[in-house]
């Protein structure tokens, strides 16, 4: 039986680890390569790097980080942030990223998903979606809207429609990131996660809002997610990767317990 996955997300800015709260006030919290290694040894199932570097002239730093991590971490490595073209995706793949996350650029130009999917394989393209709750309307009947540019720009695009469109265009996996829950530590947006997970055939990763181990358990059961993404819960030493996996295992979630 397939295990649920625990994924840690490391936001990287100018080659250093950062953690944002509600997408503003980012602060540095250390060396991403060291953190990645620490989580790998502690049983992490998958690692995501999100490049939040603002200036394009510093983008290459990210490739160095990915390369350094890929040399010592032998679990799937997913990278996103600022992927705008097949060339961006190919560079990251060559540096050692297994999976490429596309987000804002795919919303602005949906064929990017199909192009990247063709170039590096559908299974390796992750459509990352930043989503906020809105009043249900003719434009957004699901009551959830796609937001881009790090949560700053609402697009008036229905999130459920976009998830299905992403699957149709060739995404191999979806990240459902709730802007409302992100940084609150009050739990994932379970209604949204379950709604999207049931509407597509590809795996769904729950993101945004984790603060306690039971939040992960809820996302992986009630939320029907295939994987749960955490960041600050583990970055500041409050919880460990192995401790979270143990908790989930003890509470009836199938996890990989030997590493």
């Amino acid at each position, binding site marked *: 039986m*397939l*295990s649920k996955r625990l994924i840690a997300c490391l936001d990287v800015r100018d080659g250093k680890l950062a953690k944002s709260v509600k997408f503003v006030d980012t602060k540095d919290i250390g060396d991403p390569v060291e953190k990645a290694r620490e989580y790998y040894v502690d049983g992490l199932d998958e690692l995501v790097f999100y490049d939040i570097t603002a200036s394009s002239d510093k983008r290459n730093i990210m490739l160095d980080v990915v390369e350094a991590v890929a040399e010592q971490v*032998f679990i*799937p490595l997913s990278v996103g942030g600022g992927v705008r073209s097949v060339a961006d995706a190919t560079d990251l793949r060559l540096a050692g990223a297994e999976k490429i996350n596309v987000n804002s650029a795919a919303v602005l130009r949906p064929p990017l998903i199909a192009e990247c999917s063709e170039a590096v394989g559908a299974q390796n393209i992750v459509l990352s979606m930043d989503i906020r709750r809105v009043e249900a309307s003719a434009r957004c009947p699901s009551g959830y809207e796609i937001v881009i540019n790090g949560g700053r720009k609402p697009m008036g695009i229905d999130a459920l429609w976009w998830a299905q469109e992403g699957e149709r265009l060739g995404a191999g996996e979806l990240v459902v990131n709730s802007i409302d829950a992100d940084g609150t530590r009050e739990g994932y947006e379970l209604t949204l996660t379950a709604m999207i997970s049931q509407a597509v055939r*590809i795996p769904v990763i729950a993101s945004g809002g984790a603060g306690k181990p039971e939040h992960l358990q809820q996302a992986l059961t009630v939320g029907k997610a295939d994987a749960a993404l955490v960041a600050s819960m583990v970055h500041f030493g409050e919880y460990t990767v192995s401790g979270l996996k143990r908790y989930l295992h003890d509470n009836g979630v199938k996890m990989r317990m030997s590493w």
Partner: protein
Amino acid sequence: MAVIIDYDAGNLRSVQRACAQVGLEAEISADPDVVRQAPRVIFPGVGAAGAAMRSIRREGMDTALRDIISAGTPVLGICLGLQISFDYSEENDQTTLGLLPGKVCRFSFDQPDLKVPHMGWNEVRVVQPHPLLAGIEPGDEFYFVHGYYPVPARSEQIYAVTDYEHDFASAVGSGNYFATQFHPEKSGRVGLRLLANFSTWDGTC
């Protein structure tokens, strides 16, 4: 020393890095003659069966693979490498290499809850011992990403099985050829153990 076959199908450097970690120096090559002379060969792959077969035939790598397998060179197939080793794949309705008897089928869409691809960590249950599976314990999980699964015609060529909707063959082999549906290069400690086993394997069972 090993050669990793390059046929435009996937992230070969991941395999190369994991080999380096277990002390196996590996060169990536698209040259069939380099492959013929290699002391051991890794046949990886990510992508679709149709494109992979076109690329392999164009480069003459299909003949090189047949040559080294008859010559007794230890060969490790991974993921798509495993899949196109069989006779036929439902993916792209493609006739494949026929190094092993059997076919490759798509995971069923009958169950609405079943996510395809089969993506993530799953248990690999050893059903008969093999030198490459030495040290793999019950409960050990490996990383998988695939939408199709192998159906070997000969059950004695199945070395491990994995449960997704139903049991499927996750490791197969015949003589000096061994292949895994999972990715040892992305499977942490146990994956590295398998690669370390391969680095010293003489090709016999």
